[in-house]
């Protein structure tokens, strides 16, 4: 997939993105009202994932950045002062060349750009790292999910370790790239005070965090698993109580991060 995109770029052909779906009224995917493109494909297999239909790589609606942007600008009147476009997934960074093309063109039009990622593809190896640096130049803010602070638990929960993810966050912190950190609160998985406290302490070390959000786990994705014939890993686990959500917010000290208001 990445190799294919690389080839396309060198030949100056338009990069093709594989789009799962469009949400024209995203109001919880970055600052303000946003046009959200959900890209197709993810390698992580988070147990609580509510979009298993976005996992497969190399399928979805093929679109160029120009075509997507042409769609997006139709909604400009709704964006107010803060809104803009968000690229989410799937795992958006699997199609990094497409996003670079998209964000570069969006910034030329003065559109606010937001990257929603879990960081799994991040690596200091080339050619990825140079591409990531370029992408960051066109990205106003990133929404970064930390699935679990503990590497071992992270692997159990998602199938992958979190070392490169934390490395990405560190890189962004060191280079002044702003981010919102989001954490899905899942009973029996992430909802333990010691892990939450550990995560809270970790976030304190990151310099460019504008907002921290606790997203309560929900069961709205269950029917998708049934439709796709996939076994649902969290069967029987209920969404967290309001008290536990507040507890997590306290341990992550979400109130302390107010940069998003500016």
């Amino acid at each position, binding site marked *: 997939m990445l190799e294919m995109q690389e080839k396309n770029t060198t030949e100056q052909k338009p990069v093709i993105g594989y789009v799962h779906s469009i949400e*024209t*009224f995203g*109001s919880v995917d970055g600052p303000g*009202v946003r046009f959200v493109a959900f890209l197709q494909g993810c390698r992580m297999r988070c147990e609580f994932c509510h979009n298993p239909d976005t996992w497969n790589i190399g399928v979805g609606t093929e679109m160029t950045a120009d075509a997507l942007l042409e769609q997006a600008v139709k909604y400009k*009147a*709704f964006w107010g002062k803060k809104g803009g476009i968000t690229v989410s997934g799937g795992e958006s960074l699997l199609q990094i060349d497409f996003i670079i093309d998209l964000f570069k063109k969006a910034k030329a039009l003065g559109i606010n750009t937001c990257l929603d990622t879990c960081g799994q593809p991040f690596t200091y190896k080339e050619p990825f790292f140079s591409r990531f640096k370029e992408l960051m130049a066109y990205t106003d803010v990133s929404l970064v999910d930390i699935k679990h602070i503990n590497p071992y638990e992270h692997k159990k929960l998602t199938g992958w370790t979190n070392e490169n993810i934390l490395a990405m966050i560190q890189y962004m912190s060191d280079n002044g790239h702003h981010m919102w950190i989001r954490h899905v609160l899942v009973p029996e998985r992430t909802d333990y005070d010691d892990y939450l406290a550990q995560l809270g302490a970790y976030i304190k070390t990151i310099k460019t965090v504008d907002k921290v959000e606790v997203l309560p786990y929900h069961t709205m994705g269950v029917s998708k698993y049934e439709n796709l014939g996939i076994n649902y890993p969290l069967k029987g686990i209920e969404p967290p109580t309001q008290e536990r959500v507040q507890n997590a917010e306290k341990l992550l000290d979400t109130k302390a991060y107010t940069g998003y208001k500016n």
Partner: protein
Amino acid sequence: MKQLEKKDIKTYWAGFNSGAWQEEINVRDFIQQNLHQYDGDESFLAGPTDATTQLNNQLLDLKKKEREAGGVLDADNNVVSSITSHGPGYLNKDLETIVGMQTDAPLKRAFMPYGGIRMAEEALTSYGFKTDPEMHKIFTEDRKTHNQGVFDAYTPAMRKARHYKILTGLPDAYARGRIIADFPRIAIYGIDRLMKAKAADFDLIGDGEMTDDVIRLREQVNDQYRALNDMKKMAQAYGFDISRPAANAQEAIQWIYFGYLAAVKTQNGAAMSVGRIDTVIDAYIQRDMAQGKLTEAQAQELVDHFVMKLRMVRFIRTPEYNSLFSGDPIWATLSMTGIGMDGRHHVTRTAFRFLKTLDNMGAAPEPNITLLWSDRLPEGFKRYATEVSIKSSTIQYENDELMRNQWGSDYYGIACCVSAQPIADGVQFFGARANLAKALLYAINGGKDEIKEEQVGPAYAPITSEYIDYDEFMDKFGKQMDWLADVYVNALNTIHYMHDKYYYEAAQFALKDTRLDYTFATGISGFSHAVDSISAIKYGHVKVIRDEKGIAVDFKADNDYPRYGNNDDRADDIAKWLIKTFYNKMNTHHLYHGAKLSTSVLTITSNVVYGKNTGTTPNGRQAGEPFSPGANPAYGAEKNGALASLLSTAKIPYKYATDGISNTFGVTPNTLGHDDEDRKDALVNMVDGYMENNGMHLNINVFNKATLIDAQKHPEEYPTLTVRVSGYCVYFADLTKEQQDDVISRTFFEQM
């Protein structure tokens, strides 16, 4: 008392800025000269006084009793309602600062037979009340009603179109409503000055050549003059002298309310709008406050008590009417704010006070609060309005920029749901709606009704091929629309002729200019289903499944096709074509009173009944399933989220649908944002963006589907849960079960 009457009219105007309004009847100029813009937030507002809370509890208790009694608490059967038919009535005389009742007791419904005695009697008997034989005799033998007049003139084709429900809700047995009187005239000028103006106008009607027009108008102005005189008598019964202008804010609101009361005592229109009174009331409050005569708490109390009165207006209706327009709506539509021709916004503290009533007395469907929206309104007001929307789902938003430009006036109001009307000199003739989804099926079935299988439309050859040929279909559809436009417009010509003759709105016309511009309103239902069906036929290769008589009963599209609601021009161009085409077809006909044609894409709650009476449509909507409301896309057609859906609706050209284009929007709180500030931001941006793209009207509902499902099971726990349904607001508990199901199954935009 004598002394007072002789006082110069100008003494009542002391403290106001002078202008042309002092030389002539001109409320707009009064507003121009006495507008007190407010750019702040809601922090100045006052809560309810003890009197307000006590009165409101009393009213809520009555409302509960009314619901327990099956919908009607009490009803007259032998007193014909008129401006002066009843003596004074009170909720609690000692506590009310604004007084006046439709009858002699709260929530007791008046007997209004002029629209049609059969309907008035059926309404009584369906709620278990007796009819009066004397009244029956008078209104069948001695005094003709509007209904009888209409049916004396209807053609067989009109009766048929009505019977088979391709036309529904025609105002041929009740009042047409939709006339917005310029109620502030009473406060500013007093009745005597208004009578003087009407007398002067009367002398200028015709030069003695007695044509139909001249005769009609001379008779009407005399009726108006008498109605004004009756208003004085009605007010006297409550101890007020409204022959003179109002002396203070309390009187101004009271005078305005007396005008409104005269309207609802004489007409049971589907919509009895209040108009645009916020800036005038604000000027009076401002003047009293400047003189130290009124506190904020007192001002709020006046507004609360006035709104409470509007919440108490009732008409008795037949079950058939209720199935169309559920929940006892009267559309006491109150239009507020907007931007003036001179660029000043019309947000005053009083607009905030009206919104505050929803907090002080709980959510309620009436008055139908309508904000004339522009992105130029001050931020503080925008955010407060969206906050009230999020809390109570009781506000509709309408595009002030669009309407002001179209109508060429900044002193217009909304009649009913979405119909703009210049208040001083404009009138709308209400015209219900025609079912275009059904017309489309008539094209396929050769004019035969798909449910009753009778010949209703013209008997052109039906489509007989297995797959529908687009060109053949369009040719036949055009012919069925020709027929429908003809029978529809001419039924309305008949209705308005008879309404003027037998059920003239003298009290409301008395409070408008004598020379008026008329709009001939029509409407379309089944819009999204007609559009998607045409798209299916054009792009989807549609196969017809017929019953043994050859009537198309089901359809299968082989290919996917574009649907209205995704901001996809292929489908949206069909929407634009449909409205223009039907408009142009109607516009070839003679229109009563030289009126100008307008149409609407609005269904109110009638989308349920319309759907019930319409067979399966080529877009996959099954027979009997509700239509989507107003101009909303079909359920499940939207694939790209809320804004794509809104932008499809925004493409419908207002120029062809000046009677309004309604969109009802439902969203869950968590989709709007994770906290209150984010939610308000998102809503403000959404409304601004919609209007900037020429979207006309937006109902906003903010709640979870689960809340509605629970409210359906336990209505007693949600007595004041209100929802906005295609142009008005209703207590959820007052909807029929089918309509509740419809609201629950409607598209709720939510994100996971």
